[in-house]
């Protein structure tokens, strides 16, 4: 999961570049490259404090990922029985879990880069971007991105590292909790505690 965090970090960027050129928002390869390049400079190697790094990460996570779609996916068939208030609560907590648990790994970045190797069609409006994370010793880790075209442009719905899908793993985790707790409220409680513990003071 550290790799997953690093991958995400590689995609972070400032928001300044958007107005200048929006073409990357619709081209899958450019989309990943844009976030990778800007992410390294925008956060990982940027000379800013941790609070600012976390804030930028949250902005970029919201901008690059379709968090509501991911939320729907990781909850699975319980989603349609979930009240709107609980849905909203979950989306907020899910975002916090990812932002806080991944941002603890900011300091572990040691010069990795992302190289896009190719793209494949994925569903009706989707693209799968195949890439590798290359470290300074030349070792590679496979990373795939499932993208979906939305109104504002492409959004990431899943990241697959060495065959392990973030969305599927969270889905198995959360549906197991829902099954044991007998519903969403138990999951929301546990996530609330997890976020409270992970929130930087």
């Amino acid at each position, binding site marked *: 999961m550290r790799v997953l*965090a690093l991958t995400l970090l590689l995609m972070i960027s400032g928001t300044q570049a958007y107005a200048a050129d929006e073409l990357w928002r619709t081209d899958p390869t450019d989309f990943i490259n844009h976030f990778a390049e800007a992410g390294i400079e925008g956060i990982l190697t940027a000379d800013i404090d941790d609070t600012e790094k976390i804030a930028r990460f949250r902005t970029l996570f919201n901008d690059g990922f379709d968090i509501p779609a991911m939320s729907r996916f990781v909850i699975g068939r319980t989603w349609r029985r979930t009240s709107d208030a609980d849905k909203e609560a979950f989306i907020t907590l899910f975002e916090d879990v990812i932002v806080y648990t991944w941002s*603890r790994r900011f300091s572990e970045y040691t010069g990795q880069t992302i190289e896009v190797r190719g793209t494949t069609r994925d569903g009706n409006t989707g693209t799968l971007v195949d890439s590798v994370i290359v470290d300074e010793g030349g070792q590679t880790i496979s990373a795939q991105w499932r993208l979906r075209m939305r109104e504002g442009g492409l959004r990431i719905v899943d990241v697959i590292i*060495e065959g*392990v899908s973030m969305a*599927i793993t969270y889905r198995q985790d959360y549906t197991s*909790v829902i099954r044991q707790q007998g519903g969403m409220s138990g999951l929301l409680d546990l996530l609330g505690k997890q976020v409270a513990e992970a929130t930087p003071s």
Partner: protein
Amino acid sequence: MSRYTASSHILRRAVLPLVALVALSACADKPPASNPEDLRAYEELNDPLEPWNRSMHQIDQGLDTVIFNPTIAVYQTIIPEPGRKGVTNVFRNFRSTITFANDILQGEVRRAVTTLGRFVINSTVGLFGLFDIAARMGLPYHSEDFGQTFAVWGMGEGPYLYLPILGPSGGRDLTGYAIDNLGIDAMAWVGRADNPFWWQIAYFGALATDTKSNAKPVLDELKASSVDHYAALRSAYRQNRAKEIRNGAPAPLPDFEDYDDEDGDGDLFSGLKPEPAEAQTAARTD
């Protein structure tokens, strides 16, 4: 008694009682056929021994805390990073017999030649495997095991199994693991021929330390990011195994179109369905 090997010791003292325990322990309750949705979920999970596996997972976590994490901390203190990479390389080189044999058994001749080439180069130029010279020469490392061979031969994964120290596995992969380590691994045979018991304890102990040291960052992160660590680990293990079995071939994209299912009812085309008969009639009368 001098012919007693660690392998047979482990088999008699640990594995067989564990198997007996599995047989005796309570199984997860299977949902009745009247509840097809739950039944399907249960079968997809393929973890009939879940209660037993969960207690093994807890024991394993306890062993990590008491034994392996302190051992890894000492190991990482006395051997700094380039050295630990060397240790990993030496073990990979030692255990090439496992990969080579399974490359052959899977009919992967090119990969078998790569494994053989790597062994020759790294054992000589690479100073007994300490340096992975072969990778720099365009022969990258890969691993194969008998669990993967069984999968290539068409065997299903069998029920999920979690064991202390060994961690997540399954019926197929655990059988494969036993064949690899008790039968194929050349190092196990070296130990058997000469000074069996302590040599093998040292060998498997060092191997476990190296493996766990390498896996720790990823596993720690999975633990921190999950709520039900057991379920998350089960999922991640299976996905990663599926990728290993494919040998890097493109993954079949999982049929999870929920991403595009706007109303979340599990049916992508639900928006296009004709109105129910009454609603249509009502519309016409208007």
